[in-house]
């Protein structure tokens, strides 16, 4: 059975986590889509903190004998790894989109700057830039 102080501390920490995430959503600094995994993490940790027999049970499945609350850490760590991996995919997508925006913006600015020589829409942009006298 998880020692009572550990259980209380872990529950408090889980509640603080959930509270912080909800406040970040409320103040529009965190989008719901990226908060869901955090809320799930908080909920699972809260459940494990309060279900003091739970750590024993799961520790039994996992073969952890000496310190069952280690299960709390293991589960918490697993979720954090999951969240990090999720964010890595999000960052990848944002990087690609960012590159596209930068490129389109640069090309758009170039079009505007040379408005006195309007680009022919039929000519691929690449050829026009190479052949341009004014670089």
């Amino acid at each position, binding site marked *: 059975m998880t020692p009572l102080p550990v259980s209380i501390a872990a529950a408090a920490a889980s509640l603080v986590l959930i509270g912080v995430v*909800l406040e970040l*959503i*409320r103040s529009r600094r965190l989008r*719901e*889509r990226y*908060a*869901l995994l955090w*809320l799930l993490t908080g909920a699972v940790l809260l459940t494990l903190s309060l279900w003091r027999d739970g750590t024993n049970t799961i520790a039994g499945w996992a073969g952890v004998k000496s310190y069952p609350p280690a299960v709390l850490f293991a589960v918490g760590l697993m979720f954090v790894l999951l969240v990090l991996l999720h964010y890595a995919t999000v960052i990848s997508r944002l990087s*690609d989109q960012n590159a596209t925006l930068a490129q389109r913006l640069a090309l758009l600015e170039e079009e505007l700057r040379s408005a006195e020589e309007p680009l022919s829409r039929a000519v691929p942009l690449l050829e026009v830039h190479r052949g341009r006298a004014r670089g």
Partner: protein
Amino acid sequence: MGPAALKQSAPDADSSLVSASAVPRPLAGSGPVPVSESADGRRCLAILPAYNEAGCVGRVVDEIRAFEPSVEVLVVDDGSTDGTAAIAAAHGAKVVRLPFNLGIGGAVQTGYRYAYAHGHDVAVQIDADGQHDPSELGALLAPVLAGEADMVVGSRFAGRGAYRAPFLRRAGIRLFAWTVSRIVGQSVTDTTSGFRAVNRRGIALFAFEYAHDYPEVEAVVAMARSRLRVAEVGVLMRDRAEGRSSITAAGSVYYTVKVLLAILVALLRPSAALTEAA
């Protein structure tokens, strides 16, 4: 189509959810009032978010321009790869092409930004896949044009037709309708319908704050939290002409959880009337 066709048909078992505002106004005359008549010089923008709808977008644009020639049609091409933009332009619509796919929320918000920048008085969302019937535009826009509401939602469950979604979808729609009705303080029956119109206040609200995924329900809540008036009008929707719905089973779970979280947290933000931006 005579005025009889616009009156509410016999209420079905869902009539307990139908509010007074859901009854379509019977219109004098021989048919739906063209938007140009009731608009009094006000400009209306039809926002058509489109992702790979090359098969239907041409027909939808034609229908809107035929039914309501005074409405400006804007197709927001959400990174399509099938030539949707070119087809829409060929049928006379104004086209905005997003550099990559943003999803329905981002695409529709682009339309609202356009409406805001160009000073439109009314903006109406219409699906590019043919599910929304342009002949219903007159009835849909009536409450907004009359100044009775800031947003009108075309509801599939407000008495017209016998739209029967698959059981799970229906349950989800009813869950949202129930939740949003509690939050908004009036009965709403179809919070997920993308067939909706807003006036300038709604345009201003959505141009700057609009959810990126599954935005429809949150938009209704946002209107209410900004003390704007929402009304519903019963509409008939047609089956999707081509293509498949993009919502998967796992997507439905995410949809439900995400939207419920968003609207519950929205309750924690102060409810305040919009101040007109300078």
